[in-house]
């Protein structure tokens, strides 16, 4: 039974999806998604324990051994992603019941849960697979389900956001497919470990360079790295709140995981960061993302758009860590992936509660909400300080780690951009505080009681981010182990 865990955690949500769509009952669909997410989280915890004690776990799907068959590989590098994705999905499941009931037409709710199950299956699939083509298939499962989810938003602009994301996202996914095809053309294998072995002797092959570029550009679209970020603000801001929470916390992070997997274990760090100038390009794009993302966030008039632009800036911090290609840099990037996922999920969840109680996230409509809803306001402020990187929060820990890693390599310009970005973060978080606390409450609102499930989900995420700030041993040890695993078998 425990031997089947790697495939079980992907299968649970994958089987949940058609059941949700067939049952047509809101409660049953919600329960199925909750159980699938909880089951995946349970599998992830058990797998993490087994990896810690017994090392890398390999599972041959259908009994066909690699490199012929598809292989699932669980190691120190993907266990944090599995834990993060399934934990956030569980929290979203708790959060979503009341939130979706308020924001989505009743007859569509079971279909939303079916798509949520598919997104979860796709993300976990990308994380566990050891086969390059299989990674593309899971990437498309995740993406197609997320286009449908974004289109479920209340306003008609959500449809346009979903369509634009579909066009850009599909082009990105096809770029990944071309890259994998080129890598297959030069090696004749699709298994990641096998690819890594055969590509080692092929440096200098132009088809291989093209493969690296295609895969990286394709994944950069999914990650929303700076010049390819245009789909993100509309998509996150217009999606139903529960969907924003899940996608903002995990979708781009899984793409980052896939990028790291391809960069370090498939193509090897020597090729990507030594022979090709990906590191320098990454650092430049990271600086632009930090500065422009944060600056644009300062001028937004809607809380969800503000948070989405801040996500683009935060992706910049993560890319900066990756572009160093050192153990410290990758570890800091990984730590920021975990911390930012928790922090941003808390903020989008709080925005969801505001949608439910005030019917809007426009900053003008939020005037004085802090005086009427002090607890929600407190959650926003604590998580917002995490975005800035103020000491007792998780954001401080990962930014500190990133700053140390940058100093180690003498990357002063990137460090300076990071500081400016953090100051700008203080400005946009300050705007929320100014609007929420210092402005007179202007409108008469129906103050219905907040649902316990949503408040519990928000405070769980907020307290988790504070806990990771006070006692960062758990995320740090996961990130360090991941970086060590990544740089030991991929490069040097």
């Amino acid at each position, binding site marked *: 039974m425990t031997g089947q865990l790697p495939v079980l955690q992907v299968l649970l949500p994958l089987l949940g999806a058609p059941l949700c769509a067939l049952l047509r009952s809101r409660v049953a669909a919600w329960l199925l998604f909750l159980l699938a997410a909880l089951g995946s989280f349970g599998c992830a915890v058990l797998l993490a324990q087994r990896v810690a004690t017994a090392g890398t776990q390999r599972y041959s799907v259908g009994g066909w051994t690699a490199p012929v068959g598809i292989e699932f590989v669980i190691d120190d590098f993907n266990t944090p992603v599995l834990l993060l994705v399934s934990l956030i999905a569980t929290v979203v499941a708790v959060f979503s019941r009341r939130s979706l009931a308020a924001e989505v037409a009743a007859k569509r709710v079971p279909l939303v849960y079916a798509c949520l199950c598919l997104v979860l299956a796709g993300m976990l699939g990308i994380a566990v697979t050891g086969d390059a083509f299989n990674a593309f298939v899971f990437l498309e499962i995740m993406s197609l389900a997320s286009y449908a989810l974004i*289109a479920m938003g209340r306003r*008609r602009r959500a449809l346009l956001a979903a*369509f634009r994301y579909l066009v850009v996202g599909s*082009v990105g*996914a096809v770029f990944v497919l071309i890259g994998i095809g080129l890598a297959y053309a030069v090696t004749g294998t699709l298994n990641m470990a096998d690819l890594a072995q055969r590509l080692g002797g092929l440096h200098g092959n132009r088809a291989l360079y093209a493969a690296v570029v295609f895969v990286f550009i394709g994944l950069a679209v999914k990650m929303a790295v700076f010049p390819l970020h245009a789909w993100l603000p509309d998509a996150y801001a217009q999606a139903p709140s529960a969907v924003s929470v899940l996608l903002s916390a995990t979708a781009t992070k899984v793409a980052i995981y896939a990028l790291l997997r391809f960069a370090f274990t498939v193509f090897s760090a020597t090729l990507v960061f030594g022979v090709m100038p990906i590191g320098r390009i990454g650092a430049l794009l990271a600086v632009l993302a930090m500065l422009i993302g944060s600056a644009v966030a300062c001028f937004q008039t809607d809380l969800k758009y503000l948070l989405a632009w801040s996500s683009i800036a935060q992706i910049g911090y993560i890319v900066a860590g990756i572009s160093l290609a050192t153990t410290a840099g990758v570890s800091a990037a990984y730590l920021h992936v975990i911390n930012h996922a928790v922090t941003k999920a808390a903020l989008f969840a709080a925005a969801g509660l505001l949608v439910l109680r005030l019917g809007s996230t426009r900053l003008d409509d939020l005037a004085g909400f802090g005086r009427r809803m002090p607890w929600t306001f407190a959650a926003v402020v604590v998580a917002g300080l995490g975005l800035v990187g103020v000491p007792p929060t998780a954001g401080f820990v990962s930014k500190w780690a990133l700053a140390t890693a940058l100093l180690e390599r003498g990357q002063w310009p990137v460090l300076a951009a990071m500081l400016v970005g953090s100051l700008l973060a203080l400005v946009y978080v300050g705007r929320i505080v100014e609007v929420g606390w210092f402005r007179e409450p202007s409108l008469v609102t129906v103050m219905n009681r907040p649902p316990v499930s949503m408040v519990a989900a928000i405070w769980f995420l907020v307290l988790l981010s504070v806990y990771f700030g006070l006692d960062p041993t758990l995320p740090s040890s996961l990130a360090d182990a991941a970086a060590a695993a990544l740089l030991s078998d991929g490069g040097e």
Partner: protein
Amino acid sequence: MIGSHYVYWLTFALMMIGLYVVISHGNLIKKLIGLSLFQVAVFLFYISLGKVDGGTAPIITEGTQTYSHPLPHVLILTAIVVGVATLAVGLALVVRLFESYGSLEEDEILRRDTTDRDGVAS
């Protein structure tokens, strides 16, 4: 080089035509047509990878020694399904966009959106 690799030149030319259509056209249906063209070009690229000189279809028959490589063909079956699903979701979105905005032109949709930012999806 062009002589021996002309198939790749053709498939990549087709890809770029598809990508150009996606970028240059404002009509949502035309964008999807471009996207489909782009995807199909990649399918052709994979299929041409599997061609072995003098090989026949990969079905075991008497008197044949050389077969084309079947793996890229199988991979592309999966990718075709993904492409069909993408097109289906895209067209479904276009239908709902048309119902909500009454237009298929991106410029027109954006113009109508700025006049009524809180328009509800129909």
